[in-house]
């Protein structure tokens, strides 16, 4: 029913603060449907844990698939084997080097990509001419796979960190650009008219009207961009890397070590999720509405 649709979606948008005060409100009303002054442990407190449910279920399935022999251990190592490999690397300290350098590359690359994407997105979102000039080119470049860039970046930027960070930033650039440019072009005309009538000036219009209005789009773009930064890491770490999770993955493939392959995939997933939570956290700070 429509009512259900709304209820659920409604709930998903209410901030915790609102939830809390609503509950307080009905408790004060002391009407029959309220359970008195005892605070009902809110289900929302356990909600974050729900997210663990599906992954855990997948691990169980994975374990079952290996132990029942659907996949042989040399094809897909059992979860414990992967955990042991990761633990071994962690204990020897080797893991942290890989994680640290990859995090650094992703952070720098994503940061750069986001900044440049924001600039270009703003430009093309605001100006029809800039959009006509740049958008077709950028839309074409968008579709070039990370691996295709590798030889060119090697040629242009050599084998150092620069090449890696720049390659990652290429990945992060496009979602930011695409979302922001579209978002800015879609900012409510009525609000732009307000900015014009009150002579806010170009910079102030951007700061007070355009960016806040396009912020949700920018944030989706940033989440997508950080995701792509992680995707580009493998290609970047094919450029003369001897450390990093992407290197680990390539190495695992070269050495036919499925435990390392799966371990690095898990690292990607885990760190990717962490970075996503971090981006959401930043968003909540920024939006803090």
């Amino acid at each position: 029913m429509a009512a259900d649709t709304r209820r659920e979606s409604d709930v998903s948008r209410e901030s915790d603060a609102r939830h809390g005060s609503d509950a307080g409100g009905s408790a004060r009303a002391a009407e029959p449907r309220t359970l008195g002054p005892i605070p009902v442990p809110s289900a929302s407190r356990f909600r974050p844990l729900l997210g663990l449910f599906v992954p855990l279920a997948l691990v169980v399935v994975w374990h079952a698939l290996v132990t029942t022999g659907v996949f042989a251990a040399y094809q897909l190592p059992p979860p414990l084997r992967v955990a042991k490999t990761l633990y071994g690397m962690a204990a020897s300290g080797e893991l942290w080097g890989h994680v640290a350098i990859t995090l650094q590359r992703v952070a720098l690359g994503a940061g750069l990509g986001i900044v440049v994407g924001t600039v270009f997105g703003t430009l093309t979102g605001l100006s029809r001419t800039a959009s006509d000039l740049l958008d077709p080119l950028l839309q074409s470049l968008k579709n070039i796979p990370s691996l295709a860039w590798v030889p060119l970046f090697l040629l242009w930027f050599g084998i150092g960190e620069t090449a890696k960070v720049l390659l990652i930033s290429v990945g992060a650039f496009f979602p930011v650009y695409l979302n922001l440019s579209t978002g800015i072009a879609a900012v409510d005309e009525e609000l732009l008219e307000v900015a014009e009538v009150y002579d806010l000036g170009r910079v102030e219009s951007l700061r007070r009207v355009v960016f806040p209005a396009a912020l949700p789009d920018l944030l989706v773009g940033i989440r997508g961009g950080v995701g792509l930064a992680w995707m580009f890491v493998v290609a970047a770490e094919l450029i003369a890397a001897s450390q990093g999770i992407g290197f680990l993955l390539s190495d695992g493939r070269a050495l036919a070590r499925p435990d390392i392959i799966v371990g690095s995939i898990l690292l990607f997933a885990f760190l990717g999720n962490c970075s996503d939570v971090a981006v959401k956290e930043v968003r909540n700070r920024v939006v803090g509405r």
Partner: protein
Amino acid sequence: MSSDADADVTPSSADGVDAATPTGEADPDSSTADPVLAVDDLRKRYDDTVALDGVDLAVADEEFVAVVGPSGCGKSTLLRVLSGLEAEFGGRVAVDGTDVRDGGSDAVGMVFQEPRLLDWADVRENVAVGLPSDVDPASPPARERVDDLIETVGLDGFAESRPDELSGGMAQRVSLARGLAYDPSVLLLDEPFSALDRLTKADQQDHLLDVWEERGTTVVLVTHDVEEAVYLADRVVVLSGQPGTVASVVDVDIDRPRDRADADLVALRREVTDALGR
């Protein structure tokens, strides 16, 4: 009223002296049958803003009630609660005997204070949103009904326009037409004529009266226009401002069709205005 108001709410019943307890007592109609809308000690707060505080109201079947009150006193909030859009409030609110918290009733239609049109749809589609769910909007009778409504609100020729091509008052009339298309047994109207000029407004008021009489709709109309309130309603409920409580209820016992210049109406208008004055 507001007898068990929360401590942080200033009691505001001071000038509500002449207020009859509105629940099925003052009005002769409503005492004859179970009220269609029964609001009992309704309290509603948003975080630290108390919007409504101990509101009692009973609206009988086929009754036409107008609600007036200062800006921000909780009129829209009252309609939202009645239509089942608010999940959290204190007190009891029932439509046709069913608690609104249990899903709300399909029988209630609402015209919002803002037009709330679908930007991407033309006027015809927007009005068709209001058609009852068992009506296929593509069927010829449905289309005809929609086009009739568009004509009734004075927008013939604009059926294919998009909301951003309409003036403020035109958008408001589309929203009104959408509400009428729903043909609910209880119609809640939130300042539906506020953006209309005198003549258009008078036309729409009369049309609303026609619908009300023909279809036996129960109507709750929020308005700032006291003349409109007394001209249309059986009863005018005056809310006092922030937090909203019922300050007074004015019965309009004048036969229809009424004359806008009728002396009794003018007197009642003064009475409502006085009740509104702080």
